[in-house]
């Protein structure tokens, strides 16, 4: 099912891309323009996606995958989005500390002392490494 959803996503994206590519000038064989390759690539992507989707719909072969903890997946994504949001608001050091602590607890790290210690030490290490050793601007 996931496979079909992903292929459908590619199909829809390819249609969208082709629609936008059509707004560029295709040109001629003697004088190709900015839309030349995008339109060809868009058509190819649509056709391949259609073929693939048709094959997947007709296929009776079950697709086996390792089991995924979708709850954990959702929480990790939420954590990532919060990290990106907090990044510029509270600064790199604080945001990274909170994010690491969050991830350690999501990953079932037991207790609080170790995750707190690791989060503090790691965020400080990364901050020093990037800001002072590599002279990178961090919020």
């Amino acid at each position, binding site marked *: 099912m996931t496979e079909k959803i992903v292929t459908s996503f590619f199909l829809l994206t390819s249609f969208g891309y082709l629609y*936008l590519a059509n707004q560029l000038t295709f040109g001629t064989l003697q004088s190709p323009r900015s839309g030349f390759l995008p339109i060809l690539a868009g058509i190819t992507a649509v056709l*391949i996606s259609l073929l*693939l989707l048709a094959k997947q719909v007709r296929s009776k072969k079950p697709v086996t995958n*390792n089991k995924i903890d979708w709850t954990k997946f959702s929480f*990790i994504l939420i954590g990532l989005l919060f990290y*990106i949001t907090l*990044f510029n608001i509270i600064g790199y050091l604080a945001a990274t500390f909170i994010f690491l602590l969050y991830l350690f607890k999501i990953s079932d790290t037991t207790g609080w002392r170790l995750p707190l210690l690791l989060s503090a030490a790691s965020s400080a290490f990364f901050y020093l490494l990037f800001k002072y050793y590599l002279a990178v601007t961090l919020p």
Partner: protein
Amino acid sequence: MDTLTMLLHGFSISIIPTNLLACTIGVLLGTLVGVLPGIDTISAIALLLPFSYNMDSTAALIMFAGIYYGSKYGGSTTSILMNVPGEAASVVTCLDGYAMAQRGRGGAALTVSAVGSFIAGTIGVIGLTLFAPPLAQSALAFGPPEYFAIALVGLIVLTKLTGTSTLKSILMVTIGIILGTVGLDSMSGISRFTFGIDELDRGFDLSLLAMGIFGIGEILTVMTESNTASKVPALRFRDLYPTREESKRSVVPIFRSGILGFLIGLLPGPSGTTSSFASYALEKYCSKNPAEFGHGAIEGVAGPESANNSANSATMIPLLTLGIPFCGGTAILLSGFMIHGIIPGPALITQQPDLFWGLIASMYVGNILLLIINLPLIGIFVQLLKTPIHILMPLVAVLTLTGAYTINNSVLDLTWIVFFGIMGFFLRRTGFEPAPLIIGIVIGPELEQGLIQSLIICNGSLTELLTRPIAGTILAIGSVFMLYHIIHWLINLKHRQKETISS
């Protein structure tokens, strides 16, 4: 003689303290990357690209090359000790390496793997030294039609060599080409598919894409799949070395597979993985005891690991002399070159001889360093495997995200990396290989530029393109390759239909 002089000059550059340190860091990191499952070479180099911004270009590229070929050494460690391939090219090593470890011969397997990698890696670098300059000379005869032909045939061959589904690989390559069209069109200067976002004018940063798909994607996969506790067997000192019999049986496979790996490495595609499988098949065919393969045959470790390393050196030839990456690893190396404002290609040898020969000489030095590192430090590296995934992955996640931010100091890049990470996660689960996508985004712009320039030069005449000797030959080879696979597919289809009817 001239090559030897330049190579000696290269050695003088490679042993400059800064460059030697960069080489040491690179091979050490590469070995670590290879040892740690969950982080592959492309992700490691992509993670470290931002680190290199303040480094000297030669030192930076020596470090990245060190990571690239160093990871092949480390990949065998987890394959042999834990039956977990450190990277794709070490999958085959699991078959006999792990069986040897279970018989208490894990140390011997690790030693043979390290020594074989050193010898074959040196064979590869010698080949690179001898063949790169003449290839570069002949490459000067290449024009836009020839580059277009190489890019097109490279894409065609790659889609067949990667993954199990050709259709999926073709789709991934096409998606990569599509992603490569986002941003300012180099020919017309028009912004394409940017939706008015100024930051998208520069297109998608390749390192960002790689870090997202391979780094964040891998982290999401590992953190959400069920884990099994890994057990690392203890190694005694005497178990670290092979017996005389094992050494004797390893010699011919190392040299034979070293040459085979080098030849395969000249072709587009994931040559490391391809060469290791091809070597395994070859060694099994040549072996006096083929039944032993799969149950702890030393040749099953020596051959594939040697081929893998030799192929690595060969993949540098098209990158350095033609400026075209033939696999995902060299694609990310190309991004390293571009970040430092260096364009690899036929002119690299003449315009930047210090960089070119310094890089090649550093590969000789790197191979020696890898042997020195891997033999005594095997026990220590194995301890890293005991780092629990639930501690390792969050740290890698933060390192990836921080690295992504430092590229353009843009929070939007963090959003993109998470988006590509989710994409990478679902690609893995649905059998779509991410590597062709990287190839597509790297070769796509080359393909477009070559195609448009060729059509302008040939006045829109495709037949004129085919009549050019080099371009025509390359396209003919690509056509034969495609025809062979189409016929092969039709024959297989007919057999399957016959089997269906008879059953």
